[in-house]
């Protein structure tokens, strides 16, 4: 069963506009969420995270919003740049599981067009 879902396999936006990537989860025990960015033939790179005690975390052009009641988080990138084109993975951590192994979504491929 998929506990972390990214329902949009791909997203295309124009350079300079906002990119919004969405992620839904089913397990209300998740208490830490992360976004990773992955270029082809490379490993996932950590981008930004948010604890369940917050509803927003911002780092430069990247903002993550968490809506616990809806079990939904989103990553906003503004303004989008061509170098942001990559696959973005949402991941969640369950504190009941030892050592914090992450549960990943399937990823959303973002294409930013110049």
């Amino acid at each position, binding site marked *: 069963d998929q506990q972390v879902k990214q329902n949009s396999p791909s997203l295309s936006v124009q350079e300079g506009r906002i990119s919004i990537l969405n992620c839904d989860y089913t397990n209300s025990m998740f208490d*830490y969420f992360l976004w990773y960015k992955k270029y082809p033939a490379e490993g996932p790179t950590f981008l930004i995270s948010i604890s369940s005690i917050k509803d927003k975390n911002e780092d430069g052009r990247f903002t993550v919003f968490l809506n616990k009641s809806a079990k939904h988080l989103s990553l906003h990138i503004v303004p989008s740049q061509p170098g942001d084109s990559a696959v973005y993975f949402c991941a969640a*951590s369950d504190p009941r599981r030892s*050592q*914090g*192994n*992450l549960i*990943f979504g399937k990823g959303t491929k973002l294409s930013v067009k110049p």
Partner: protein
Amino acid sequence: DTAVSQTPKYLVTQMGNDKSIKCEQNLGHDTMYWYKQDSKKFLKIMFSYNNKELIINETVPNRFSPKSPDKAHLNLHINSLELGDSAVYFCASSQGTTGSGETQYFGPGTRLLVL
């Protein structure tokens, strides 16, 4: 100055062979992981080691055996390779040993193809 490194980057081998993938982290982290990304692109945890001790062993065939000679290394040995083992294997590490709030840093991946 690579943080998490894996070798080899590509591995092509025949069914039935035994192979190893090496992972090293120079971040001084206590915990290391192996993930498998299958053809459906899901990243799934296989093993987690903390200070050379096995912590997590998800439902993985016992043909897969992780070995941690020291805190900075976690190698993955695979016996009797099968076609279904073809995937990308990622090593990762994190600082802490607690269940959550820890960011994991990933290696570049090893692309295994079993013929």
